[in-house]
């Protein structure tokens, strides 16, 4: 088997994960093998990258991602991310990455107080991450956002640093759907291997079921990197 065919991307299912099957579909569509990972199993089963999918882990009643952070699988994810494993958090996954301190800041209640689902215009702000290298810098995408708590906040110095270091990955354009600071839709860690996004690229892989195929690039990016590494 070649590295391309053999690339395995793990998708974690927490109690209350909802977009896990969609993420698996997107991973397969991009050409990788999707491996289901279970919250209670502290083992990444040798995957080459991890996706933390959208949903409402544990109902998200207290605070999004607050409880999932303590799942046994997360200590493995945190450790592997520290070793450079590519990790993508989508929506609830992004919230979980912030709660786990893999990414700075927090995602708070939308400014208009409503859950909002819409097809959102986005701009790719950096291609120097494991999950965006297949895009052109400045590319405009249309990808669904759907969340009630997607407003990114962080203290001033943190936001300034994210901007200065080019760690804002995605920005909302043509309207900010939730009041996010600096129109931030996604960020990365300083190594570029951990990325968190509020928009759902896994819902933009086929025009039959989504607004575009613009989301495929996230999964294609990580595959490209895995192939290069191999």
């Amino acid at each position, binding site marked *: 088997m070649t590295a391309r065919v053999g690339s395995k991307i793990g998708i974690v299912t927490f109690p209350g994960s909802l977009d896990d099957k969609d993420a698996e579909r997107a991973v397969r569509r991009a050409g990788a093998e999707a491996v289901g990972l279970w919250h209670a199993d502290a083992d990444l089963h040798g995957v080459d990258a991890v996706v933390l999918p959208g949903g409402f882990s*544990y*109902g998200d*009643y*207290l605070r999004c991602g607050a*409880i999932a952070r*303590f*799942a046994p699988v997360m200590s493995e994810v945190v450790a592997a991310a520290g070793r450079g494993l590519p990790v993508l958090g989508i929506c609830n996954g992004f919230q979980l990455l912030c709660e786990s301190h893999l990414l700075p800041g927090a995602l708070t209640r939308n400014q208009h107080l409503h859950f909002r689902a819409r097809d959102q215009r986005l701009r790719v702000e950096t291609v120097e991450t494991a999950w965006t290298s297949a895009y052109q810098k400045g590319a405009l995408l249309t990808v669904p956002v759907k969340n009630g708590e997607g407003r990114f906040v962080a203290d001033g110095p943190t936001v300034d640093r994210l901007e200065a270091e080019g760690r804002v990955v995605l920005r909302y354009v043509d309207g900010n759907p939730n009041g996010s600071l600096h129109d931030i839709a996604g960020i990365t860690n300083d190594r570029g291997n951990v990325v968190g996004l509020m928009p759902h690229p896994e819902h933009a892989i086929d025009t039959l079921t989504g607004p575009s195929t613009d989301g495929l690039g996230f999964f294609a990016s990580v595959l490209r990197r895995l192939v290069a590494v191999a």
Partner: protein
Amino acid sequence: MARVFVDVMLKPEILDPAGQAVARALPSLGVEGVTGVRIGKRVEIEFDGEPDLDRARQIADRLLANPVIEDFTVQAE
């Protein structure tokens, strides 16, 4: 500047999914000995003059709590 606190809690007989989810998560954090968790709202109302408990009560009754499922208490700072 005077503050009044309104605490809104689900009535005892009403299910509290948020509290329940936290209570169930505690053992995985290594916390034992907790028999129950209830999560409500704590609302801080700031008046420009005297703390007005009556007015706070009225706000709570009409805007902050639904008496069908919630109880509230009001106290000045």
